[in-house]
């Protein structure tokens, strides 16, 4: 379905379409709604460049009298955003890696082999598929503590990526189950073991799914809040952007321009990644749901 959403291939076509009043009206309506949809970001951007009284004092005007770039410097330096940024990158990277590795391995055997215990495994997946995070946070803290991993990055990464994530496993399983059997058989005749078959044949073949899983788990890990919040309560140096941002509010609740600037700093990377890869993003989500 992927290419079909994006069906306007011929450029001059829009000119022809918009000459019909009905079409033009619908387009204008959609455009207006779209602008309304990103208005909060535009307002935030404008607020991040205003002075404190200007934010709530200058009505609906979006243009600051004079852009105050210093707001960004303050948000970045005072709050220690550089540190939060690095933390978020590390935690996200580790989580994505963990999810990809374990989902690909499990998805491969689940998708292609029959073995004792498979039904049990799938039943467990079904039962726990939609378990909300808030449900397990107390035991997860307890477990992480018992492993001695509270206040470590590994603890956060395991908390995020070790459990859950059934969807990723199933995506891999679905993909691998559709690959022809001959792939392995010929490799096995050449004397390759399961691990070699997996890493040299199967994993490279599954790159579209890997891309999807990377994108979905990137979104999940970058935006997650509850777990890093609880895990870094006693260790502010390990806060992620999302947690650091809310801490910033707690400590500087009236520094609105600084707050807006901090929000922009925290949102821009994920938005940039999205805009750069948007086709893939949308296809991933649509593809995942269709399966």
């Amino acid at each position: 379905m992927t290419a079909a959403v994006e069906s306007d291939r011929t450029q001059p076509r829009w000119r022809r379409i918009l000459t019909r009043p009905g079409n033009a009206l619908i387009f204008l309506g959609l455009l207006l709604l779209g602008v309304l949809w990103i208005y909060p970001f535009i307002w935030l951007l404008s607020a991040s460049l205003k002075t404190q009284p200007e934010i709530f004092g200058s009505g609906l005007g979006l243009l600051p009298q004079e852009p105050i770039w210093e707001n960004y410097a303050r948000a970045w330096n005072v709050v220690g955003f550089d540190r939060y940024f690095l933390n978020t990158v590390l935690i996200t990277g580790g989580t994505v890696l963990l999810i990809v590795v374990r989902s690909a391995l499990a998805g491969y055997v689940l998708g292609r082999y029959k073995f004792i215990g498979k039904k049990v495994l799938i039943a467990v997946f079904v039962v726990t598929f939609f378990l909300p995070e808030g449900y397990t946070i107390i035991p997860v803290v307890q477990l992480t503590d018992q492993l001695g991993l509270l206040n470590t990055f590994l603890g956060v990464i395991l908390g995020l990526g070790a459990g859950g994530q059934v969807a990723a496993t199933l995506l891999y399983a679905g993909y691998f189950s559709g690959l022809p059997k001959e792939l392995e058989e010929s490799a096995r005749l050449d004397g390759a073991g399961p691990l070699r078959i997996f890493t040299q044949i199967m994993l490279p073949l599954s790159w579209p799914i890997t891309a999807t899983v990377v994108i979905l788990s990137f979104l999940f890990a970058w935006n997650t809040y509850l777990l890093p919040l609880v895990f870094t309560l006693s260790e502010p140096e390990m806060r992620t952007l999302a947690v650091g941002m809310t801490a910033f509010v707690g400590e500087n609740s009236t520094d609105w321009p600084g707050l807006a600037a901090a929000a922009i700093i925290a949102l821009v990377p994920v938005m940039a990644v999205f805009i750069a890869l948007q086709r893939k993003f949308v296809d991933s989500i649509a593809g995942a749901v269709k399966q």
Partner: protein
Amino acid sequence: MRTNIPLERTPAGMPSLDRRRFLGVSGAGLMTAVLASCTGGGQSSEESGGSSGAEGTIRWWDQFRPLTEMLEQDLFTPYTEAHPGITIERRQLAAADLGQALQVARRSNQLPDVHTLVGLDSAPAALVSEDWFQPISEFADFDSSPVADQIFDGLHRFDGEIYSVPLFSARQHQTIPWYNTELLTQAGVDPEDEPTTWDDLRAVARQVTDNTEASGIFLPAQNPNYLTAIVTQLAMAAGAPGAIDWSTGEYVYDSQPFIDAVEFLLSLQRDGLVHPASAAMIPRDALARWAAGEGAIFPWGPWFIGDLITESPEVVERGLGCWSIPRPGAERHSVRSGPAGGVFWVSTDSGQPAVAADLLLQMTGEDFQAALASAMDQPPALLETVETADVHPAYRDCVSRFAEDVRIAPAPEIGHPEAWRVVAEMRAVQPDLGIIVQSALSGEDIDVAAQLRTFREAASAERDRALATVQQEGIEVGLDAWVFSNWEPESDYMIEDYEGR
């Protein structure tokens, strides 16, 4: 993995603070390099790298942002200069975060050596019984410290051992009407002409609202605890004994003074005298907006000037002052405040109790108390140091008003050795006073008197339940622990009064 080894006793050379993180990272296989390079680079670990042997690092958590400079200058720096082996790592956390941070730290045996209890301070005795702290009396001579007469059983001393000491004066409350002199003058109000009654205060607020761009008064309603405090204090000014009538031991949240106090606040809002954004403000927001000149009066604590000076000294220059808490009519009533509890506590896992005790002892000394006074935060336990300290005249005025207006109330924990068990067993009853006022202020149509009665009944029932639970465990304590028949509302309840009841 679960270890009780105090962090400071780790082998020399390994950065003690990061030991746990190190353990976490070492098993990480392929991520080790990346993570180690990152966790090892924190500011905190650099400082602790050199500590070893008998010396060590004191980790210290508190929420006193305005005291940051003063603690550094008057306590930590002199101490570490005198004891070259000792490093002190202080971390200041927002009051709202500190309680949560402590809980998590406790569960993972990472409590700092010394910390405050904000957010967990409902019953320090409960924490003592759960083995959070260690006694410090053997390490320092607190009995001859200047605050010795303010150290009480059940608050600071448990089973004969001292765990903590009072640093701040009990003679204070949190709702002093601070005013902006410039705005008042602009509105044609003479600050010297003190509004002593509720109607006087309303008139001043109205004059400001009518004659200037600014609002009359701030009532930061996002924080229910603030609302609880202001209503309780206004109710006491109107003649209520407090949340509890100490002569009978009963809760009195639904008595007339409480209802009147809530009505007074609601009427200020109805009259349009309250800053319109108040509903979304916590007290810190209100302070910032007060400083920006958006309103004339903001009832808050004695730390008002201390807070302002660290962030915007020019605002203090502009002119400010305080009045006493107003009352409904001509009759004066004092407001009451319980005895001052301990502030800093020494964690049970701390490997440096002697150093911690020494630091706490120094904080009770006259030098530090005088420095505390000049920081203009909460008034120091040794109140007389305020008179000679270099403080803003309005701060001195505020403290001398406390001497007139505030009386010390009794505390069940001091009077009965087992009362704390009941306090610790009691759970928060909701909706409480602050929440009821918050709903009423946000325009919900509720019957305040009926809600207050429901709350009073629920609070009593919860105390009865807690009492029954504790009694079931075979502990002898009764409701009489809350009754102080010799209590006089207009005088201090002294230590000898506990014996005479």
